[in-house]
């Protein structure tokens, strides 16, 4: 086992930079998730750790060894690919044994290790089949089996669940988490799915356009997003954003639509330095309530313009004089399109962002 130190890493194709100097330190045994939209550079960064892409500038170290110039086979890593990359002409056993055999392990060791890995992943009965005879979930397990038999310092996962259907994805997510708890090897996991990132990660690195937007625990990126991008990317449905202005002494927030919200006294000091500034007001759907009850909740009159029942919750899109917000209501609320709804805004949970840079302005303290 080993940690990974990514320092000022740059990747450029010709003169086109795609990763602009990223620093991430992954601790030994940590489950780190790189998340972001397509083209953000997360897969490229993973492939640079693997050695499948060259590093233009900066260093990557696995353990205490800088691996920039080492070929993949000398980095002591194992990788699970998005398409699994199983060798179709080899049996499951041969697939899992491949890495060991290439390293000239004695056959009895190969057999013991493959059987042990098959045991962990419950694929012992599939060892003589070929990949074409397996289901998607089984192939996924074999791909993970191929990685764990090698007992590497680091596991790399490149969007391993994106080819599975929703139900299987949920199951495999649990499997991967259990696997990590069992073998405790350092994992770097790439995904574009924020649910996977939140559920699996010890720490999440949110990337955008080749930059690291935020590195933190799932609670950090959810509760204290560093930028409007992170706030919008993490959480589903996405955070509501409304242009607003901070009132005098930070006591009020005036939304673009004309509604003025009173800020709880506890946050006045935090907002005072922003008085008079244009900001982007952000609030998550789960922090909007049906009716204004409870401390620090401000009521606003709105009109329901769309209703999406999910069963456990109902998503309601509401308009407040031109601005729109989506709220997560209990289904008992029974809101219908066109209804007038008193929307409760939990003023202890809002976020403020700079309209130009997108940076978070007021950092909400830990609850």
């Amino acid at each position, binding site marked *: 086992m080993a940690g990974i130190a990514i320092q000022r890493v740059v990747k450029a194709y010709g003169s086109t930079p795609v990763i602009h100097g990223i620093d991430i330190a992954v601790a030994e045994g940590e489950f780190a998730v790189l998340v972001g939209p397509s083209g953000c550079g997360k897969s490229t960064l993973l492939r640079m750790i693997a050695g499948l892409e060259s590093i233009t500038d900066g260093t990557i170290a696995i353990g205490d060894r800088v691996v920039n110039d080492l070929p993949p086979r000398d980095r002591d890593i194992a990788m699970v690919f998005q398409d699994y990359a199983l*060798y179709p002409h080899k049996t499951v056993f041969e697939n899992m044994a491949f890495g060991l055999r290439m390293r000239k392990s004695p056959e009895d060791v190969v057999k013991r290790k493959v059987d042990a890995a098959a045991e962990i992943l419950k694929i012992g009965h599939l060892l003589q089949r070929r990949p074409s005879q397996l289901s998607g979930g089984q192939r996924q397990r074999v791909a993970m089996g191929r990685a764990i038999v090698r007992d590497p310092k680091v596991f790399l996962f490149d969007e391993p669940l994106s080819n599975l259907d929703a139900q299987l994805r949920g199951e495999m997510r649990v499997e991967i988490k259990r696997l990590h708890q069992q073998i405790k090897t350092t994992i770097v996991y790439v995904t574009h799915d924020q649910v996977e990132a939140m559920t699996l990660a010890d720490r999440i690195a949110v990337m955008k356009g080749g930059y690291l937007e935020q590195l933190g625990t799932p609670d950090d990126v959810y509760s204290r997003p560093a930028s409007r991008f992170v706030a919008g990317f993490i959480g589903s449905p996405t955070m509501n954003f409304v242009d607003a202005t901070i009132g005098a002494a930070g006591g009020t927030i005036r939304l673009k639509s004309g509604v003025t919200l009173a800020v709880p006294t506890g946050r006045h000091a935090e907002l005072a330095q922003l008085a008079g500034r244009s900001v982007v007001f952000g609030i998550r759907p789960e922090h909007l309530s049906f009716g204004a009850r409870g401390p620090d909740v401000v009521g606003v009159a709105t009109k329901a313009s769309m209703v999406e029942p999910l069963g456990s919750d109902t998503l309601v899109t509401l308009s407040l004089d031109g601005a729109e917000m989506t709220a997560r209501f209990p289904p008992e609320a029974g809101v219908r399109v066109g209804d007038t709804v008193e929307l409760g805004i939990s003023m202890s949970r809002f976020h403020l962002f700079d309209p130009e840079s997108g940076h978070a302005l007021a950092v909400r303290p830990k609850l």
Partner: protein
Amino acid sequence: MSATPVVRHRLTKLERAEQRLGWALLAPAFLLLVGVVLYPVVELINQSFRFNQLTMPWMGTPFIGFDNYTKALGDPRFWHATLNTLIFIIVTVPGAVIVGLGLALLANKPFTVKWPVRLGLLLPWALPLVFAGLIFRWFFEYNVGLVNAVIKMFGGQPLTWLSDPTLAMIGIFVAIIWKTSSFVALVLLAGLQTIPKSLYEAAEVDGASSWQQFWEITLPMLRPAIVVALIFRTITAIQTFDIPYAMTNGGPGDATETLAMYIHKNTIDFLDIGYGSALAVLMFVVSALVTAVYLRHTQRNPARVAT
């Protein structure tokens, strides 16, 4: 075929109209096949059982049973031509596949400028066979040929390439392999491009060297394409004609004469239609057998072929 009894039901008017249209659409292709394939083959077989020498028109074309075939089996020149054809198959089929595999691997490399490789790959394939034969006849020509010029440049003695029986065979091998390997390369290149890149990446992470990747991934994954290329190449090798015809015309003597050339000689030069037809039927049977192997191969479960 399943054993379930077919329940015949009366066709509706619409179904009958569709059936008629179906037959009408099939008819042109069917008639064309009858005209250009079925009729010539039947006529060939018919002629092979007859005495038909255009030099002796007064003899007519009487039916003589298997006489032409018994003549062939006792004809040393037929056996020699068959042996030559076999040698061409044994040498040039694997030769073309090995060279073609090399070319395909080369063409599969991510070159920044792709056209020279593509041109090199396609040019031999696009050239007419006779033209390729003529080029190589010049290459191996004694006085002004390129090969002897190179030998002389390095201080060697020029060789009588096309008038020595063994050297003439070697010259023809080279020409055939050069000409046919590009077709093999195209087939194999298509096969190579279906191998996912991630397999090589996984193998690289797994610790396989380039050589191990070739043996463990490329070659087994390419096996179906190699089999197809081998069979196609074998079928064309059975019919080897143009290149030796243009380079040596079967010479010196009949040292490089193939079965197809001997058939040509009998029918066109000696005007012995009956005997030529019998020889052609024998060659046709061999070709049909190889084609049958090919059909069996392609009709196998595609999933098994791929794995």
